[in-house]
């Protein structure tokens, strides 16, 4: 606003036009550049404010201060916005082919704003036709060496660790932030074969699993083998298995492809077509059930340690998820094409019980803009 006022003071003819005065300023050569400068300044100010807020949050985190859940009016207002349409429009805009001479400038600007490393890009910048293509770029061979230790689980993405830990109890919960949690079953789906373990009680666990086996007797054998490994797989009796989780947030400048954390068999895919709220730090503090409400793709299967699931959660700006193991899957569809059901759309991978085998470090999926 102050920039606009300064411009109005500098060019009074333009100001009088905007107030409905005489029209002798028509064709004022400063009109368009003035508006452009004001827009750029406004965007710059917003970016600076965001960086300042991020720094404050980072400092608070370093001091060990954990921010608490605190819903506000802005979060409530977000629910009224057509975020899916905005996301799709953003996807359309960013997939517009850019002139070759402009590409390096746009991508370097993007990299500066969001701290992306351009030296890792697999291709020269001129070869990415659109911002969308640049965003899902692959990396040079050897940019992401996979930890060779056979007894380690590696990160599936580039990002920031938000939360991790062990899940306990019959209804395990993950903290979204301090003061608000969501259930793992809601995240992965009610039909998930998530092993639910009663806290610290082996006998109780056995009876829970036997009960689960009875209840799930109509399901296929592989589901049973995962739901009750002690019944189906004597090797798994020892050692005991705990259930763990890890939440990783990808910033806009991060490499946006998902890789396999271990050698595993993906048995089933679930697609939840929910909202597309932003997933930034502020949103996690202000929007309830953020990860459970947003559109997401869940892959479930088994590895040598037992159960394994990866949930890739979309956001407004990065709304669609592309699966390399199922290229025909479409996410972030227009509202009219969405099924009017709260049930996720499921696909069991063939052959049933074996699914698709992925090696540690294999590429699994990619997040797309819009």
């Amino acid at each position: 606003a102050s920039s606009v006022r300064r411009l109005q003071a500098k060019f009074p003819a333009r100001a009088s036009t905007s107030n409905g005065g005489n029209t002798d300023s028509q064709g004022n050569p400063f009109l368009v550049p003035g508006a452009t400068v004001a827009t750029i300044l406004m965007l710059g100010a917003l970016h600076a404010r965001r960086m300042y807020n991020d720094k404050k949050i980072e400092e608070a985190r370093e001091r060990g201060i954990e921010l608490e859940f605190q819903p506000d009016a802005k979060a409530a207002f977000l629910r009224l916005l057509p975020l899916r349409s905005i996301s799709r429009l953003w996807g359309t805009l960013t997939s517009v082919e850019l002139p070759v001479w402009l590409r390096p400038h746009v991508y370097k600007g993007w990299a500066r704003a969001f701290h992306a490393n351009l030296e890792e890009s697999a291709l020269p910048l001129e070869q990415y036709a659109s911002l969308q293509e640049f965003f899902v770029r692959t990396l040079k061979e050897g940019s992401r060496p996979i930890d060779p230790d056979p007894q380690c689980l590696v990160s599936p993405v580039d990002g920031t660790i938000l939360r991790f830990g062990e899940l306990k109890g019959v209804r395990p919960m993950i903290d979204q932030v301090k003061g608000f949690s969501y259930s793992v079953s809601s995240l992965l789906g009610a039909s998930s074969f998530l092993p639910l373990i009663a806290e610290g009680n082996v006998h109780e666990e056995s009876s829970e699993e036997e009960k689960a086996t009875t209840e799930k007797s109509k399901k296929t054998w592989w589901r049973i083998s995962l739901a009750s490994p002690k019944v189906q797989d004597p090797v798994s009796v020892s050692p005991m298995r705990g259930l763990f989780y890890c939440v990783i947030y990808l910033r806009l400048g991060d490499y946006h492809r998902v890789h396999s954390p271990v050698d595993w068999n993906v048995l089933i895919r679930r697609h939840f077509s929910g909202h597309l709220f932003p997933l930034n730090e502020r949103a996690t503090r202000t929007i309830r059930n953020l990860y459970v409400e947003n559109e997401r793709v869940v892959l479930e299967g088994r590895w040598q340690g037992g159960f394994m699931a990866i949930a890739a959660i979309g956001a407004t700006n990065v709304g669609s998820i592309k699966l390399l193991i199922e290229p025909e899957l479409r996410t972030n569809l227009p509202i009219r094409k969405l099924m009017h059901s709260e049930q996720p759309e499921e696909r069991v991978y063939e052959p049933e019980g074996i699914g698709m085998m992925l090696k540690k470090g294999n590429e699994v999926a990619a997040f797309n803009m819009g």
Partner: protein
Amino acid sequence: STVVLVFQAPVPKSPNENPSSPEFSFCVKSGDRIRVGEALGRWHE
């Protein structure tokens, strides 16, 4: 965008039992930056 990983991993049967049994532990902390292929956690005999 965000990725949530949920998985089973070895843990000792009880804190007092067989200290040589494999145990999974994370090798990251909240707020850490991590990249594809870097270890999130390990289990040891």
